[in-house]
């Protein structure tokens, strides 16, 4: 395993990172009210009296949100706490209608777990999960709608979030990125969070400190609300570099909350001390402790889908894939499913090559996703079948694939329409090969005097003369015989 370090004037510094990820729970309703949670709705159209904290309104826990948290905990190989509790985190803000956020402070629903990540050098690393708890999201303050006023949108107010806290086990920007990608992959497999960082349904707070090898932890800073994996990696690097500079110039890192400025690639302090909050956490008296039934948890566990690690292991065992290919294919559930459809009953390695090669390239080029791809898994499989039964050869297959990307048609339709069926008629191949040899007597002579490499030239010319449709094996065979 490669050790990441920041080289300072006093030598190398180790980077210590812990991540707090806020993941919006996939659920039709908010954590404590029945309001809808669709992204991008008109402001203040998904707000109940509970979400707006009208007098006398009371929270009622959304059972599905609890199930999602438990599923996530199970997916993180974590301890599920059969008894957990909701606390109030008290602070005033215009987009926090209750004047407190309902969260789980002392007794979270999920305890310690672990996430395995793969690193670019082929090694793997276990990163500990400290806890996962459920909490409400706040609304949104819009400061740019009016010259002197702030507008409040409460659509997000009360939406269920899972806060997933890692141990300070991360030691490099790469590991931070790998952790987030793996976590997102697990959440998506489970269907508990869509992991969409652009829409804010997954956000990360990044805790960074640096130390000399073997030292205890030094003071950390929290970089708040980073909204892409790339920015998290950049923020780790920038904040660690800043801290090294502070320590090495004789200063002291102060514990504070910072923001990452992605334009300038630096972190800067968020707020001054005077806004330091005393959140006055206490158990929410409107809610009873959350008590989970063992059988209910077991039922959720039994219904869990196959998760990325298990799937990767199976792809290696069942399809003989390399760890790398298997890792790439399982990162997204949809990709894995696509691959399995293509590979089923076919040569899995060829299927993997096509999916990770031409197919991914086509998606990248066209901006399509697996879901919107013009080439379906069944059609890609059919293309592989046409090669296997020698209806077309590999070169033609590339052209057919491009036509499939353009038109969305089946490979059979394209082969028929364009007359791309491979020529296996030996008399046609004989004629084409003989014509090429006849047209190139000098090269034939060279070949016969020992220039073996010219064989490829004869194959290419013959194939070209046949518009690419000749069966390559037969062409080889014929040329060998004629040149024999």
């Amino acid at each position, binding site marked *: 395993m490669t050790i990441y370090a920041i080289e300072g004037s006093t030598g190398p510094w180790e980077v210590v990172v812990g991540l707090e990820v806020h993941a919006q729970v996939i659920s039709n309703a908010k954590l404590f009210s029945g309001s809808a949670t669709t992204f991008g709705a008109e402001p203040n159209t998904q707000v109940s009296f509970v979400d707006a*904290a009208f*007098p*006398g309104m009371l929270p009622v826990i959304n059972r599905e949100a609890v199930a999602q948290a438990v599923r996530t905990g199970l997916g993180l190989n974590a301890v599920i706490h059969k008894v957990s509790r909701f606390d109030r985190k008290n602070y005033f803000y215009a987009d926090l*209608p*209750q*004047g407190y956020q309902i969260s789980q402070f002392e007794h979270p629903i999920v305890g310690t777990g672990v996430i395995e990540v793969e690193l670019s050098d082929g090694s793997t690393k276990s990163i500990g999960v400290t806890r996962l708890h459920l909490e409400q999201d706040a609304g949104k303050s819009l400061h740019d709608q009016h010259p002197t006023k702030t507008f409040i949108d409460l659509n997000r107010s009360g939406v269920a979030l899972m806060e997933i806290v890692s141990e300070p086990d991360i030691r490099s920007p790469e590991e931070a990125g790998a952790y987030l990608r793996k976590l997102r992959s697990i959440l998506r497999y489970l269907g508990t969070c869509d992991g969409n960082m652009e829409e804010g349904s997954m956000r990360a707070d990044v805790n960074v400190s640096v130390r000399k090898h073997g030292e205890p932890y030094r003071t950390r800073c929290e970089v708040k609300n980073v909204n892409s994996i790339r920015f998290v990696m950049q923020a780790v690097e920038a904040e660690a570099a800043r801290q090294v500079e502070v320590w090495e110039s004789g200063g002291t890192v102060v514990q504070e909350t910072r923001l990452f400025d992605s334009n300038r690639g630096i972190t800067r302090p968020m707020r001054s001390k005077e806004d330091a909050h005393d959140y006055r956490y*206490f158990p929410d008296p*409107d809610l009873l402790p959350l008590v989970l039934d063992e059988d209910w948890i077991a039922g959720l566990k039994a219904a869990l889908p196959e998760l990325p690690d298990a799937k990767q292991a199976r792809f290696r065992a069942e399809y003989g894939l390399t760890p790398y290919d298997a890792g790439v294919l399982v990162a997204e559930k949809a990709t894995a499913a696509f691959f399995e459809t293509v590979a089923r009953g076919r040569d899995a390695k060829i299927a993997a090559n096509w999916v990770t090669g031409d197919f991914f390239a086509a998606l990248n080029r066209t901006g399509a996703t697996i879901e919107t791809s013009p080439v379906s898994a069944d059609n890609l499989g059919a293309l592989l079948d046409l090669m296997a039964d020698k209806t077309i050869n590999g070169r033609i297959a590339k052209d057919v694939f491009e036509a499939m990307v353009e038109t969305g048609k089946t490979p059979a339709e394209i082969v028929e329409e364009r007359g791309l069926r491979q020529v296996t008629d030996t008399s046609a191949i004989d004629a084409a090969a003989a014509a090429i040899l006849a047209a190139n007597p000098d090269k034939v002579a060279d070949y016969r005097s020992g220039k073996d490499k010219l064989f490829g030239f004869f194959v290419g010319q013959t194939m070209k003369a046949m518009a690419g449709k000749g069966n390559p094996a037969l062409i080889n065979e014929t040329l060998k015989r004629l040149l024999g």
Partner: protein
Amino acid sequence: MANSGSLTDLTIAEARDGLRAGRFSAVDLTMAHLHAIEALNPRLNAFITVSHSKALAQAQAADAALAKGDYGALTGIPLAIKDLFCTAGIRTTAASRILEPFVPPYESTVTANLLRDGAVFLGKANLDEFAMGSSNMTSAFGPVENPWKRLQDQDAVLVPGGSSGGSAAAVAARLAMGATGTDTGGSIRQPAAFCGLVGVKPSYGRCSRWGVVAFASSLDHPGPFARTVQDSAIMLGSMAGFDPKDSTSAERPVPDYEAACKRGVKGLRIGVPREYRADGMPAEIEALWQQGLTWLREAGAEIVDVSLPHTKYGLATYYIVAPAEASSNLARYDGVRFGLRKDGGELAEMYGNTRAAGFGPEVRRRIMIGTYVLSAGYYDAYYLRAQKIRALILRDFNDVFAQVDALLTPTAPNAAFAQGENMDDPIKMYLNDVFTVGANLAGVPAISVPAGLDANGLPLGLQIIGKAFDEETVFAVSAAIERAAGFTALPQIRAGQ
């Protein structure tokens, strides 16, 4: 039509039977009460809002239902609603400036239950601001006068108790046949005692808190006021019931409380908690307590001395837990979405301006206390310790109820006092809750029944405390006290006088 005086003197049970027999109409009954309110409310200030036209419309609907024989437990019965219950389309103020303009678009579960059963709402009853007080002196809409007068001092204006002082005064003065209240530390039972009424604080979870402006969530108990035990049983039967919108609501069937009133007390074991013998308790209250025990013994109950050893910590515990929850519950009154707003240069200034203008001194005091006991460095010493003592108090009650069926105690350490008294020191005012807070901290049911008069001719109440969700026994004991006491005294200020 019977004359108004006699209509307003009827009990709920009598009025119910009269309506069903067609002796008078619901409109007659409601009009009689609206006239009484018109005559006396300017003096008593028992109502913050009178919902005249809505009440009449509800009475007309009640008459139509009665004509079809399609009536509920309270069809046509005119009630006062403590202005802490949100009522759809009727302003709900919590007796605070901060909610002065607030008209809820929703109906609280308890009031919806009453409407389902045909009740008529006369209006919204005055209270201490956000139910914080024991005298009704903290209302932003002015104090309420107790309809009872001292025999020797007719000039003194007495308080009705609090926080549900308007509800109690309205029912005592015959401005309403019954009323809803809320009891967080004694806010139903103490005013019931001060006004010669029956006041019921049911078990925690029996009546939904949904739509009731919150003071202290773990201590707030909605409950009824009425002039007889039977009437209060009829009302509670309608108000109670499981509500999925309140996570602390109990999923239990509601028993027939009216039937429980007739059970008698033969063979019941009644506990006398020795810690309730407070030093300095007036002799007449002590005497009334002994009288109550004698009545129960004579009715066939066995009297047992018991101990609730943590009683002396009850008041201190209450005045940590209740303000702590209140400081958080009242954070939503920030001027952003509803109610009062006083603008400021920036957000924090708007909060400060709004809350300074909107909250009265007692509410501000409790928010300060609550914020303090929850803050870093003080949480363990105050809030956490109070929670531990609360658990011990609950254990005291559990232990005692393994030995006895109910407890008998005085409701309050004194009769109604005059406006202005006890105002110099908040602690003195808080002492009014000394006998009542235990039942709130433990969540067990308790009823105050009028049992006698003091030397000034003012009503005194006895409190019956029972096991969680055993309101039936508490009603049975209360009814036995009521029968034995034969309490027939009337307040000087009342409808028809």
